[in-house]
């Protein structure tokens, strides 16, 4: 046997470690699922509007400005946790549309009165149809839509400081 062969284990080992290292260092969440809708037009939908007296028609609303779409419900505890971030977006002048997922309208209004309402419109997704079209995995879930009505970013789960910063950077980029 040649001596060179003895180095092979070290080489394979180094390669595997470097892969692990790379995956560990990059921004990556193993439970994050790539969205098929990324860089595609938003799914068209119509729904009752919780806070306005006219129907919410997506084709009239999207396509003029950057919009954050947030799927939420009052029964979902993480939604309450991320609410302060959602409000900050609104304070920064970003229009936020909240899709109220399988919820009780009365409770939702009380909830928003207590915590504050960052949403310009609240389409009601009583049976979860809209969520299915958007490929929602579990709420809360947030989408960033650019001024052409194209989805640029998707986040599954409650907002964190990191994600909040990331979305703000993205908004600056696509403006």
């Amino acid at each position, binding site marked *: *046997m040649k*001596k060179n062969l*003895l*180095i092979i*284990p*070290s080489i394979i*080992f*180094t390669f*595997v*470690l470097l*892969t*692990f*290292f*790379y*995956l*560990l*260092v990059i921004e990556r969440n*193993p*439970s994050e*699922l*790539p969205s098929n809708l990324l860089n595609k037009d938003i799914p068209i939908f119509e729904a009752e509007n919780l806070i306005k007296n006219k129907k919410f028609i997506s084709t009239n609303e999207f396509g003029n400005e950057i919009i954050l779409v947030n799927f939420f419900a009052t029964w979902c505890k993480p939604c309450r946790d991320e609410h302060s971030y959602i409000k900050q977006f609104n304070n920064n002048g970003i229009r936020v549309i909240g899709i109220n997922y399988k919820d009780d309208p009365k409770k939702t209004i009380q909830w928003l009165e207590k915590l504050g309402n960052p949403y310009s419109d609240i389409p009601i997704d009583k049976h979860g149809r809209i969520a299915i079209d958007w490929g929602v995995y579990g709420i809360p879930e947030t989408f960033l839509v650019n001024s052409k009505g194209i989805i640029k970013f998707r986040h599954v789960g409650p907002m964190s400081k990191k994600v909040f910063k990331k979305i703000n950077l993205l908004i600056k980029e696509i403006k």
Partner: protein
Amino acid sequence: MVTLLGTLSLWLTLFFSISQFFSLKKNQSLKIIKICVIGLLIFSLISFFTLMYAYIVSDFSVLNVFQNSHSTKPLIYKISAVWGNHEGSMLLWILVLTIFNFFIFKFYNKENFIFISKTLETQAFITFGFILFTILTSNPFEETIKVHADGLGFNPILQDPALAIHPPLLYFGYVGFSAVFSMSIATLSLENNQKIAWYNYIKPFAVIAWTFLSIGIALGSLWAYYELGWGGWWFWDPVENASFMPWLLGTALLHSLIIVEKRKSLQTWALLLGILTFLLSMVGTFLVRSGILTSVHTFALDPSRGLYILLFIALIGTYSLILFASKSKRYFDNNYFAFFSKEGSILVNNILMAVVCSTVLLGTIYPLIVEAFTNNKISVGEPYYNSTVIPIIIPAILVMGIGPILGWKKEKKYEILKKILPSIFLTIIPTFFIFMIYQSLSFIGVIGILLSFWIISNNLMMLIQKNKKYHKGMIIAHLGVGLLILGITGSSVWQKENVSKMKIKDTVNIEKYNIVFDKIEESVGPNYVAIKGNFLVYDKERNIITKLKPENRFYHVENNFTTEASIHTNLLRDLYIVLGAGNINDGWIVRIYYNPLVIWIWIGAIIIFLGGITSANINLKKLKTFDQ
């Protein structure tokens, strides 16, 4: 008080591991080394039992207890919760490391002191690395700032007797290989004029580690079988693979050590296996604790932990493999192995085990590599493993039946035939009977059953002959493997599944059984409420065989549901019922499995364990007489 005592003793273990390392490096007297080894053991015991005490008395001022326990939990699960979470399990890991450290020290004498010192030096370094990791990233003794009335509870699917002892057994396996690793390093770092029968020292530790790893894996598998309610016992989950890979290399190592001992061959290879087995155990730890992939086993996500473990693996891995590349040359040999000989068969075993291990490794990390290079997510599942692992392992099992009865060097083919004739006969008859019972032929089925009886009959013949030449532990362990294969084959080839929506008084047929959904009732456990289905099982003659009562439990503290499968077992088959979602008007979803021969998997595993213990005992005795 608890947090103070625990933290203090944890820091003291760190101190003793450092002093053990440096006192060995500087060739201090035996007395000082002894103080370090014993101090390390005592303080890791104290820190471990301090945490256990906090769990038993439900001291919720400790963050770890608050997060993982609850006062209504039964005592056994309060205790097992100690290692049911990341921080606590690191304490157990450290404790086992120091126990092995202590036993290595026990072998210290005038003849071997250089070898043992070098081993303890590496062992101290590994222990130091793990203690530092625990203190820096996962201190179990952190205090909570707020006062809590009660804890957050413990994941209900982990509240189970098999899973209570699964981690300690597994850790004895993983950590046991650290002793093998340290000894391999010690062997490689000896000067050219220093000689020692290193394999005699490695062998008992390798056997012990392998034995505990085997039973630990089997228990985890048993738990998955009855608790997850999926009807199967092995899912090629990345973390299952992480334990399976060191097991495969450990198996190769045990066998190669026989050749090393008897023929002084394959020394380089055995040393490499000694290093790689532990490195793979560490990679397993990394995969589980870093959150780099998702699996039922992954702990809470924390990148800093992953980074630390990775750097530690890189450090000891690079050191050991470079040492191997530069120093292992002196252990080379150019011995010739005849194919039909004991060493030939062991070599085949080693090559095949290493190939299976690489295959599993590739399947486990391939998705990660693809993601790193292309950013695409893929998953590698059962079909890959079934189509790669099974064909490689079949010849290994074939050789396993015949290998032990072959002589060293070269054997005449006619002699071999004479030796195996009775077992060929013994193999065919029971195989025939099995197929009379199950009446369904499949290629894999025939091969599997033939192979298992091939192993069983060969080993029974050896047992009957009472030939001193055959190692008793080996025969028992091989017999266990034969039974294990019987169970694996039966349950994978002839499994039947029936999923249906059943209302009260509905009947379902599976194989030759009629199963009637009799009633549903509510019951209350210590920390859960449950609905319990009542199923009556009849055979064809309408005799009642058994009542099965699968449960759906709701744990209110954790806000979590679990399913408890109900299983009726006999030597030929399991009947396995899982109650799914449903209500009284629409009925419930009921999954019923007919799993042939499953019990032989568990019987096989226990016999393998007994064989391992026997062998460890023999090897330890051998080492002691050798030392005197």
